[in-house]
């Protein structure tokens, strides 16, 4: 992995580098093309317009909320999937991971029929005076729906890698299961949990289809940055490009953070 030290022989055939370079370009070129399209003199006014700032703020707030919701729901899910075998476990995993492969708009439709006014739960919620449709809550639900699998997958992986030997030792030392979870399990998988949370945040930030279908689009309430970009694109291509660049910058920062954390985590785990 590290060619700076040692002999430098990697065993990778030279032609692999050519294809790898093509692959990297395939991802990088569209970004470069977008940056090239940015109307730089107008960039700052475009991204600091009231609607843009409102959309970015809403995106950050809702993504933080849905990440918190992912952590609350995802830790128990990952634990159940990783630790206690039960009939139907594979099926449960398949369903939990479904939003990963589902078109987000399908997720939005499903949420609509669950939490919408005429939905499975929505009717009872409406009786209780809770209205989810067209609210910021709906945005958070849509984002959580699509982001939850990211947290569950990376946490379940971390739990399986960590194994349960430390937990068994903790139990024989007299720690109750809840104590074991709090003082041993969670700290051990913290790097995995952190990178899962970061991925969930990134996914929430980019959520578009489910939000558009389920939550609607109203400035300051449900119009997140991706929806704002989609709308700006109708009239003001320059604004759309500028905002896209902001979203890319936030995403790059978030993924970079995740990568750094993961490496730090890997270093901590290299000992018996």
């Amino acid at each position, binding site marked *: 992995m590290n060619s700076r030290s040692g002999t430098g022989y990697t065993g990778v055939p030279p032609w692999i580098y050519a294809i790898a*370079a*093509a692959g990297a*370009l395939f991802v990088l070129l569209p970004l470069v*093309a977008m940056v090239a399209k940015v109307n730089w003199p107008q960039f700052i006014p475009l991204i600091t317009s009231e609607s843009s700032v409102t959309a970015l703020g809403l995106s950050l707030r809702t993504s933080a909320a849905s990440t918190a919701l992912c952590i609350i729901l995802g830790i128990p899910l990952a634990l159940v999937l990783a630790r206690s075998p039960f009939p139907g476990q594979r099926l449960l995993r398949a369903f939990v991971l479904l939003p990963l492969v589902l078109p987000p708009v399908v997720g939005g439709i499903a949420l609509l029929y669950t939490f919408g006014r005429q939905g499975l739960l929505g009717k009872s919620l409406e009786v209780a005076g809770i209205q989810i449709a067209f609210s910021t809550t709906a945005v958070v639900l849509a984002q959580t729906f699509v982001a939850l699998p990211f947290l569950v997958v990376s946490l379940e992986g971390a739990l399986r890698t960590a194994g349960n030997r430390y937990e068994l030792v903790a139990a024989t030392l007299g720690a109750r299961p809840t104590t074991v979870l709090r003082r041993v399990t969670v700290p051990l998988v913290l790097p995995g949990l952190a990178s899962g949370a970061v991925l969930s945040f990134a996914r929430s930030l980019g959520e578009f289809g489910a939000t*558009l279908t389920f939550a609607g*689009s*109203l400035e300051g309430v*449900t119009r997140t940055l991706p929806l704002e970009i989609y*709308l700006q694109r109708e009239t003001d291509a320059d604004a759309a490009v500028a905002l896209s660049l902001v979203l890319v910058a936030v995403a790059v920062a978030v993924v970079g953070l995740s990568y750094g954390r993961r490496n730090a985590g890997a270093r901590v785990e290299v000992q018996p």
Partner: protein
Amino acid sequence: MSITRKNVGTFLAAGTLAASLVGCASGAPGTAASSGTAASSGTASSTRTLTREITVFAAASLKATFTKLASDFEAKNPGTKVKLNFAGSSDLVTQITQGAPADVFASADTKNMTRLSDAKLVDGNATNFATNVLEIAVPPGNPASIASFADLGKPGVKVVVCAPQVPCGSAAETIETATGTTLKPVSEESSVTDVLGKVTSQEADAGLVYVTDISNAGDKVKGVPFPESDKAVNTYPIATVGASKNKELAQAFIGMVTSSEGKKVLNDAGFGTP
């Protein structure tokens, strides 16, 4: 990654390959490459001449009517083929600007047609062939008992409209100004489809869409016409695209759309005559 002297060659070769791939792709719709005027390739045009084929880019709201008109046209002119591409008008303008192979462009508003002609991509002048007005769409039971445009402003009514940035939204805004009724929409969607979706799923009590959208949606929504809709009449222009390699056939198709036969098809779907 360490690159040896020998590898540099491979690396550069790969770069060139990738660059040429991207170059090929720049003619396709939706790519971000800047070569906006890149015309369709020669091979494509020669096949088109042989088979007398044209491609029509039309606004999404024309889907039902233009599908019918295209098949009527093919029936009347044996050996011709009309390919259709429906999308939002501004998307279509972007695609044509980026070099997408279109022969005819039918826009849902004059603004987008102007964008295209400003880019010198229209052949001759555009012809207005249809009009469309807004109508209130409500769920079948009309739960909020909407009967007029003013009813939309009542407190507690969940109204969904298009965002002002899109044509149906600017039309709604025009009517608001003209009537002095201020709407407090729960959502400003970016397309008519999204507004209709909120109404058919009964999330919203009412939505403002075009009258043609309501007739397309069947019995999933009910239309509530209102007289103030004539304050914002939307005009649909059609034109031959400058880069067309088959302008004759394109003109023939436009002639069909603007003929009395074409008007009947459009009127049946709820469009008005300009």
